[in-house]
């Protein structure tokens, strides 16, 4: 603490971003951003994907270098050329995708880059003492010998946070920290953040969940297309205003009609079990039915078997045991090709891995998995025309079928896949994380199309970690926890808190 602060004098802001500008090729990621973060505040940074939040924070943490502009820390101009510089300035970062070495122990992860000498013994001893203090002060106990990759996600995040705390970071940047947490875990994280703030830490929270912003932040800054739209004290703003600032217009989110007729069961799953890529049981005795004109939502924290369930149903992963029936067909061992013939289509969770060949042009991607024509030859002009029409119908921009699929934004890639699969007129659509990394405008579009399909009598299995999405679209909701169905709810008879308890395996 400086003398000035003891005297109650005005402190300089913890961080000033002064006209930070950054381009990646044609993309202008940060446009002369001018932003001050006050010492001891929780400052939320919101914006759509690609708005420039992560770029700005990567510049602060020395991952990227700004093309122009400067960063002032405590009023002094800083020189941050690498993460080690940022660490020396007391900046700590909790990355959305944790920067952890999974096969190593918690202690080794915390020591990395901060070993305290050639031999590890001394540094390890000091670290354990420091962990004891932190465990007492912040209720952040952890087993230092545990292997990080074997810890649940919530604890992995704790390790990531502890990396900053053992280095005595004053400024903490958290990038989408609640994306992997249950609502209950998120509440505990927020309590911790308030505690850290009370002890004088400055916190920058990157998020796209406006409800969280309203709940925890002191001030919020909105970025759009690389530029700062504005900074607002929380008391003087509200969710709708922030959403409008984020996207530059108002978006009407579609609502599910309550009255859709529900037909006979289309898909029946009984006691289905499957293993994950490492050979461990990931799906355990899962049973459910799905009817025509119904959206069945499957909620759960990422990594609780939803991915494996979806892949098993989509014919991408062998099942261990159990029955899967589509009308009267046994499809437990069916290949994707067999499923296509029955009118079952799949929108994969990982669009770049299973959905698209990002190096291929869009029109070729539109042919992949399309029903085989009589001719083995491709009619190139016709295929390009079809792709252009489809892109028009599904609002894929820019409307140029010759572009590489990888050149599209996440939202447009997703709309492309959605269009391709829907145009095959499915009876059953298996959908995984349809709006992950997708901007709000595209989310509204995708939700509209899914609800249209439901109205047409298509059965939809929707797997998502976004509870908002699950609650808005689903007729019924199943919650997965550790590979099992932890509970079933009807739409309108549940809420985020109730589902959160099921997701945590408590209820």
């Amino acid at each position, binding site marked *: 603490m400086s003398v000035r602060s003891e005297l109650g004098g005005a402190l300089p802001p913890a961080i000033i971003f002064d006209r930070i500008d950054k381009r*990646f090729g044609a993309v202008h990621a940060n446009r002369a951003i001018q932003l001050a973060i006050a010492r001891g505040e929780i400052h939320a940074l919101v914006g759509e994907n690609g708005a420039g939040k992560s770029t700005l924070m990567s510049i602060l943490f020395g991952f990227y270098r700004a093309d122009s502009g400067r960063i002032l820390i405590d009023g002094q101009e800083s020189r941050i050329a*690498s993460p080690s510089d940022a660490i020396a300035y007391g900046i700590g970062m909790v990355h959305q995708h944790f*920067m952890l070495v*999974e096969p190593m122990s918690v202690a080794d992860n915390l020591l990395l*880059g901060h*070993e305290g000498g050639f031999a590890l013994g001394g540094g390890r001893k000091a670290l354990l003492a420091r962990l004891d203090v932190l465990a007492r002060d912040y209720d952040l106990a952890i087993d230092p010998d545990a292997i990080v990759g074997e810890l649940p996600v919530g604890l992995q995040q704790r390790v990531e946070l502890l990396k900053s705390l053992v280095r005595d970071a004053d400024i903490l940047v958290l990038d989408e920290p609640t994306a992997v947490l249950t609502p209950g875990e998120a509440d505990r994280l927020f309590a911790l953040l308030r505690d850290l703030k009370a002890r004088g830490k400055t916190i920058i929270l990157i998020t796209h969940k406006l409800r969280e912003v309203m709940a925890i932040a002191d001030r919020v800054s909105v970025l759009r297309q690389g530029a700062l739209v504005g900074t607002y004290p929380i008391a003087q703003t509200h969710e709708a205003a922030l959403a409008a600032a984020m996207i530059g217009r108002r978006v009407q989110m579609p609502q599910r009609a309550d009255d859709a007729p529900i037909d006979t069961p289309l898909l029946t799953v009984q006691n289905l079990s499957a293993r994950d890529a490492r050979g461990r049981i990931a799906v355990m005795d899962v049973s459910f039915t799905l009817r025509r004109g119904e959206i069945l939502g499957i909620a759960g924290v990422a990594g609780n078997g939803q991915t494996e369930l979806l892949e098993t149903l989509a014919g991408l992963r062998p099942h261990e045991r159990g029955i899967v029936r589509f009308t009267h067909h046994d499809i437990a061992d069916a290949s994707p090709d067999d499923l296509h013939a029955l009118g079952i289509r799949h929108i994969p969770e990982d669009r770049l891995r299973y959905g698209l060949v990002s190096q291929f042009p869009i029109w070729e991607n539109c042919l992949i998995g399309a029903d085989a024509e009589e001719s083995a030859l491709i009619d190139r002009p016709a295929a390009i025309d079809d792709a252009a029409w489809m892109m028009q119908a599904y609002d894929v921009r820019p409307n140029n079928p010759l572009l590489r699929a990888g050149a599209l934004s996440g939202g447009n890639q997703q709309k492309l896949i959605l269009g391709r699969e829907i145009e095959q007129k499915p009876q059953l659509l298996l959908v995984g994380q349809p709006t992950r990394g997708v901007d709000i405008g595209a989310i509204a579009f995708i939700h509209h199309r899914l609800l249209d399909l439901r109205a047409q009598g298509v059965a939809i299995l929707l797997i998502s970690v976004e509870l908002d999405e699950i609650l808005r679209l689903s007729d019924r909701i199943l919650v997965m926890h550790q590979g099992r169905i932890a509970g079933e709810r009807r739409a309108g008879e549940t809420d985020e808190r109730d589902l959160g308890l099921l997701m945590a395996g408590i209820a």
Partner: protein
Amino acid sequence: MDALALLQIIESGLRLSVPLIFACLAGLWSEKSGIVDIGLEGKMLIAAFAAAVAAFLTGQAWIGVLAAVFASTLLGLLHGFASISQRGNQIISGVALNMLAAGLTALLGNVIFKQGGRSPPLDGAARLPELALGQSAMTILAISAVLLTALALARTRFGLRVRAAGENPAAVDNAGASLTRLRYGAVILAGILCGFAGATLSLGQAAGFLPMMTAGQGFVALAALIFAKWRAWPAFWTCLLFGLLDAVAIRLQGVSLPGIGAIPVQAIQALPYLFTIVLLAGFMGRAVPPRAAGQPYVKER
């Protein structure tokens, strides 16, 4: 088989395993840091050649060892430059290294010695002296290298960072350590160890250099590395097992087995390689390599 014969097999098995141990440790350091090294063979070969040339010219084995380390490290740095600085394909760079070494040693050998690529026989101080039980100082050095590798990986800053670099390079970068320096460090270590491996071949086990004298041992070392799941002590035991097998194979030459008769020499010589395939294919659990091995590190975007 009497006790004396058994002792002889163990002695010669240990001796034969020494180059494998060095090469296997070289691969271990390289791959733990995230650089796949299929150029072990080439580095050993060029080291064996450099050792023979230097020892022949100076008459001093230890100068031969130094020359081997120098040549092998140079080749390793070439691999490092291709795969770390230029972010090239590590497999292709390794293959190129092996071809370069094969061609270069044959060419230079012919130019220098004019004996079809082989060096003149070395003797006296130009060879590594036997200390006891058929072992040279290289055996002691190899066992020390195993001990030091195991210790360094588990207990030192460098070891910790190398392990992390091979699993999640972004985490190392993010923790404020230089990934480039770490990986170059590991590649240089691999070069030095391959240097010892090559020198052992041409100055210890043989009395001079022969074209292609490594005979695939660099690849056997890679197989041993996988079988040992990238751990130092298991690597030692695996290489020792291969060495013993080699020794048994040599012993079996000319021996007539009851019911089968004399086994062709080629079949016996093929045994260790056959064993390698069987070992890798069947008798092991899942071997998970360092996750980032083989992938050049590029920051996002």
